[in-house]
């Protein structure tokens, strides 16, 4: 397991990617051992807010020992992060969580499905699975769902995968959500990796079960410690969980990515 640390990270660049969505590169030792699907806890300078904000790692650049975070401004913390300029420092905790099980996609047809701010965590996954950095998939297909025509990161996904888009307003790709796109495009696959809002994840789980596909889902929950100590961020599991000995797994440590079959959603 990679050693977790809380460290200052240097802002290398930050730009607006789409309405309210920011694209931030941070130079940090944490980059050395980060796997796709893992996240970091980002601290605010604002002392009224003391808990770290969980933000997924979107991309890793090992040469520059840098990670990329793509986040939506939704509250005090993310609003503060958006103000950072190159050269500024931010305090981050990581790497956190377990990431996507790339080995489950090895030599397989994998579909990566992301909705809204669930899109970014899949970029590094797509990259590694297509380039075979760790494990190589047979075929990498991505299905990304957006609100409208602001399809942030889509050109980058095209580099590593066959990309299908769904949009709520129908302005790009399939009108509807990612499952609608999957069905419309009759995409078949062995494995799904997904990240996005709960209704989407529930839909994917059902779809995967019906079609005999393995699905791995990245979940979100309110967190305090981010390291598995506070038991704040649990999700319900089908079986008694190994750590808790009740049917609760910790999203921050046992996840955020879970085998859909293990989840009681």
């Amino acid at each position, binding site marked *: 397991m990679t050693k*977790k640390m809380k460290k200052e990270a240097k802002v290398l660049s930050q730009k607006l990617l789409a309405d309210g969505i920011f694209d931030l590169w941070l130079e940090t030792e944490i980059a050395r051992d980060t796997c796709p699907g893992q996240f970091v806890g980002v601290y605010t300078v604002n002392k009224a807010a*003391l808990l770290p904000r969980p933000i997924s790692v979107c991309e890793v650049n090992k040469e520059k020992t840098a990670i990329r975070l793509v986040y939506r401004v939704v509250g005090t913390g993310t609003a503060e992060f958006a103000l950072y300029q190159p050269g500024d420092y931010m305090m981050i905790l990581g790497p956190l969580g377990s990431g996507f099980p790339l080995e489950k996609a090895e030599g397989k047809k994998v579909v990566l499905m992301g909705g809204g701010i669930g899109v970014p965590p899949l970029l590094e996954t797509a990259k590694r699975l297509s380039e075979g950095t760790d494990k190589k998939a047979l075929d990498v297909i991505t299905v990304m769902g957006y609100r409208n025509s602001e399809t942030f990161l889509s050109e980058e996904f095209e580099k590593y995968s066959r990309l299908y888009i769904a949009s709520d307003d129908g302005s790009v790709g399939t009108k509807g959500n990612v499952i609608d796109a999957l069905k419309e495009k009759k995409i078949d696959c062995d494995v799904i990796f997904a990240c996005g809002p709960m209704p989407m994840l529930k839909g994917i789980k059902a779809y995967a079960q019906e079609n005999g596909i393995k699905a791995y889902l990245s979940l979100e929950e309110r967190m305090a410690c981010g390291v598995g100590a506070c*038991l704040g961020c649990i999700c319900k599991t089908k079986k008694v969980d190994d750590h808790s000995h009740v049917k609760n797994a910790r999203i921050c440590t046992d996840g955020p990515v879970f085998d859909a079959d293990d989840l009681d959603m």
Partner: protein
Amino acid sequence: MNTKVKIAGVEFNNPVMTASGTFGSGMEYAEFVDLNKLGAVVTKGVANVPWEGNPTPRVAEVYGGMLNAIGLQNPGVDVFINRDLEFLKKYDTKVIVNVCGKSVEDYLEVVERLSDEERVDMLEINVSCPNVKEGAIAFGQKKEALFDITSRIKKVSKKPIIMKLSPNVTSIAEMAKAAEAAGADAISLINTITGMKIDIYKRKFALANKTGGLSGPAIKPVAVRMVYEASKAVNIPIIGMGGIASAEDAIEFIMAGATAVAVGAMNFHDPYLTGKVVDGIEEYMRNYNVDDINSIRGIVE
């Protein structure tokens, strides 16, 4: 320079402990802090059987702190002994096990089970968790109930007993006295203060449990005051906690009358904090010529 403190015959290398429920059994934080450096590891509350805890969201951030309504999720005393206590055997620090229950019998069962465990130095009885409906806090809000449960636990326990008091009471001094009168070896305070947060856009409670326990720097002045009041009311040692974020805060509790202190929610802000508090206390002692940490206890005028 002496940083050792003694509580009920147990000697701690220094007065810095972890607040129950904020540090697991130390496993998760062992990556950040050398557990041997701590005065004691105080574990998450453990019950006779596994508890599921509350639905999520279980935590919410508030100004200068957080609310939690974990609901005392725990794997039960058997798993705890086999896994957590085993893990702690690797370390040379004192171990205080936090005990929870829904009825007096629940508590007694856990206390008896742990009484013969060598790795356990003391037991901390949580009668003040605001987040479980049955029992728990009721014992910590009525002095008669507190007296009763304390004396019954004392009868069966072979380990020294710390009663963990709730701040959600009119008079902490009376509660402290009841615990002392019933034979408690020490008291610890404060547990969290019951609070609430509402999301005005969703028109919903931020926590599934509606209310949760407030902790963090926001509650420190209340905690210091209660430690002071309790220390004037009783002669048994006090473990002080509530919002400790630095060595200075820890010393503030000691000057208010605490023999030891515990770091809670601020571990989440800084996973290295417990170690820093240990170092910072020594630095303070050096800089201000304090030879013995026990000499500044309750020294405030």
